[in-house]
């Protein structure tokens, strides 16, 4: 498990809370909750992605820009780790 795991998930949750426009508080979501089922939109994914990039000083490569990347906190955490490996 990555040393970044805790701070990654914290940053992801903060980005979702601020920019996700979800219809439930992020604190009520588990790491595997379906984000699109709680109101996540394609436009909001862009904002959340940019906020995560800012917080963690990474950049999501184009290869990760698909719906499955943004499906859950778990999948976003996986994308963060992949992004870090590709920088």
């Amino acid at each position, binding site marked *: 498990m990555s040393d970044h795991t805790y701070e990654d998930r914290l940053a992801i949750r903060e980005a979702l809370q601020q*920019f996700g*426009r979800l219809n439930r508080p992020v604190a009520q979501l588990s790491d595997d909750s379906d984000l699109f089922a709680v109101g996540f939109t*394609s*436009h*909001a994914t*862009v*904002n959340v992605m*940019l*906020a995560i*990039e*800012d917080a963690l000083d990474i950049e999501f490569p*184009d*290869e*990760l*820009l*698909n*719906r*499955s990347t943004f499906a859950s906190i778990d999948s976003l955490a996986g994308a963060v780790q992949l992004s870090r490996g590709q920088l």
Partner: protein
Amino acid sequence: MAPPESRFERDSESMPRIGCDIADAQNISDSVNAFGERYLGRIYTDAERVQCAEAPERLAARFAAKEAVLKVLRAPAGISFRDVEIIDDEDGAPHVTLHRHAREAAQAQRLGPIALSMSHERGLALATAISLPTSGSRHS
């Protein structure tokens, strides 16, 4: 019991592909305010930004159009929003140009040119995209 042979499957491969999307201009403004150049540069090409003059409703229409086109392409992974470029001609009609992975996806699915219609009113923008598979589009 398995469905009978597949007229549905056969026909679905030759049916038009349609995608639509709606975008809120206020959301676009909020994103520009929050992320500025990073947001604009990740979504829009330079030519699109010139044509939109960074007006939120025009940017929203293009965002909706890009999403509509991605739905036509069935959104395979790796397509950047900038790979789907929406440029108006001199008569104001929007035209879709696909780049990189978007172009490859369209070619792999043997899609023809993508036609597009966009509209916006009261802060909401709507776009519909349609493409016809080219002849011989059945996968072997």
